[in-house]
């Protein structure tokens, strides 16, 4: 029988990776993700997990080790946070272009300067266009589940792409919570052993990975990856449906709705702060405001169709941005642009704006959601938004 344990996000990730029977792990310390590697190294040392545990000399090396191991046919795992994620940046495109399903855990962290160690989504969101899957977990349970779901999707022959499996640093990675740990047999049923395609390294059949190509082949290589992302939604739906069946869960593949029936307003959010937002929604409803919540589970592939269909039901949508996109089209983070693009073809569009919140590891208190809802309600009444970005906690007097 599956049993319930109390685990932090980091410990839940380590346990999921162990149950996925990973072959090669490459570590390098940086908080807050490090605790996952501590757990895994203990499992390997204690003989509970039969995997190669390699200490990289930096994040670039971590990813390079996994690149090679994956090309040799191994199921691989690595991870990082903050500046570690950006230090490895060069390796992301070759791994996705090489169509190798490396999995990288992200416990996100604000980028420097000056050495802020708090949670923020900007680190890995900077790599959102490198051909990797990407999505956030709200709880240690969802983190655990997402590791398994992502291995299954990434290693699917129709996909063969690497995955960023993300959780909020500290808020999820370090706060213990209840996690239902499944039976190994359930995991084995859901996730078959990794069987690499024809492009695995083999001494009997020497081949070059990542050779130089001609400029006229560059666009065609890009098209291969673009096509894989076009085909992805179907595979994601299949994998999540299978996961729900085997583990008895109830995940939506891409977008989860909470108290959205009859809602006029909705928050659009990803990651750990969703937990606070759920409570804010409940309290706002007690005050008579019809608010709901829409949680994004995959930022890549971005569920354009689902987001467009779901959000067009509301009169106003407030996007919570826990990332920065300096000088971007929305002048705040990068989610609102994606949301507006998804709504462009909708027959009926809500007013939309964004709230910069939870940056640098700040908590998003309930009052910030109340304030955001108030601004949103005013915008709906006026039929338009005054601006596309508000900074939560820093411009309350304006409301």
């Amino acid at each position: 029988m599956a049993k319930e344990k109390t685990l932090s996000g980091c410990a839940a990730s380590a346990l999921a990776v162990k149950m996925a029977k990973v072959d090669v792990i490459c570590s390098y310390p940086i908080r807050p993700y490090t605790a996952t590697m501590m757990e895994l190294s203990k499992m390997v040392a204690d003989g509970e997990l039969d995997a190669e545990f390699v200490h990289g000399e930096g994040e670039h090396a971590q990813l390079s080790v996994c690149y090679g191991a994956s090309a040799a046919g191994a199921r691989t795992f690595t991870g990082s946070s903050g500046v570690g994620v950006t230090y490895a940046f060069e390796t992301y495109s070759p791994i996705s272009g090489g169509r190798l399903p490396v999995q990288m855990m992200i416990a996100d962290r604000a980028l420097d300067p000056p050495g802020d160690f708090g949670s923020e989504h900007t680190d890995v969101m900077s790599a959102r266009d490198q051909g990797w899957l990407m999505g956030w977990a709200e709880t240690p349970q969802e983190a655990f589940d997402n590791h398994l779901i992502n291995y299954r999707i990434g290693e699917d022959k129709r996909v063969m792409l690497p995955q960023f499996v993300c959780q909020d640093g500290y808020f999820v990675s370090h706060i213990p919570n209840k996690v239902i740990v499944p039976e190994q047999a359930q995991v084995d049923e859901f996730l078959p052993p990794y069987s690499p395609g024809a492009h695995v390294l083999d001494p009997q059949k020497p081949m070059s990975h990542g050779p130089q190509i001609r400029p006229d082949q560059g666009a065609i290589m890009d098209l291969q990856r673009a096509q894989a992302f076009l085909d992805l939604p179907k595979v994601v739906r299949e994998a999540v449906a299978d996961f729900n069946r085997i583990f008895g869960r109830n995940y939506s593949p891409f977008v989860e709705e909470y108290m959205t029936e009859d809602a006029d307003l909705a928050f659009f959010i990803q990651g750990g702060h969703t937990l606070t937002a759920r409570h804010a929604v409940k309290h706002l409803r007690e005050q008579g405001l019809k608010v709901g919540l829409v949680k994004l589970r995959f930022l890549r592939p971005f569920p354009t169709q689902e987001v467009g269909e779901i959000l067009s039901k509301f009169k106003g949508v407030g996007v919570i941005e826990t990332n920065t996109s300096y000088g971007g089209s929305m002048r705040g983070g990068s989610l609102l642009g994606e949301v507006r693009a998804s709504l462009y073809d909708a027959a009926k569009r809500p007013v939309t704006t964004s709230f910069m919140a939870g940056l640098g590891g700040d908590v998003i208190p309930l009052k910030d959601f109340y304030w955001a809802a108030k601004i949103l309600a005013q915008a709906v009444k006026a039929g338009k938004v005054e601006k596309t970005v508000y900074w939560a906690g820093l411009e309350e007097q304006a409301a």
Partner: protein
Amino acid sequence: MFNIPKESAVPFGCVTPAPVGEQPMMITGNWREFRPVIDNEKCNLCLNCSVFCPDACWQMNEAEDEMVWNAKYCKGCLICVNECSHDALTKAYELDFPDGVVRLEKPF
């Protein structure tokens, strides 16, 4: 769905069979502006050129006891000229040769 010219098709994951010998898909000799020229009288077969060449463009012909230059892949970096222990190698302008390659005549 997409019209991809056959000659530009890319293998899945951009993996190619490893060349056993030379890679005909990536001729780099036409990047050259200068080439090294060997004086076999001065050469003592120390193999410095062969060791230092980043593209393995110097090989020894053991039957003839002399070094052989590979014009197809030499990019003209001239590291060999610098490393030659007996001044047997000199730098020469590519276009002074009747078969000299013109840079960017055919870019790749």
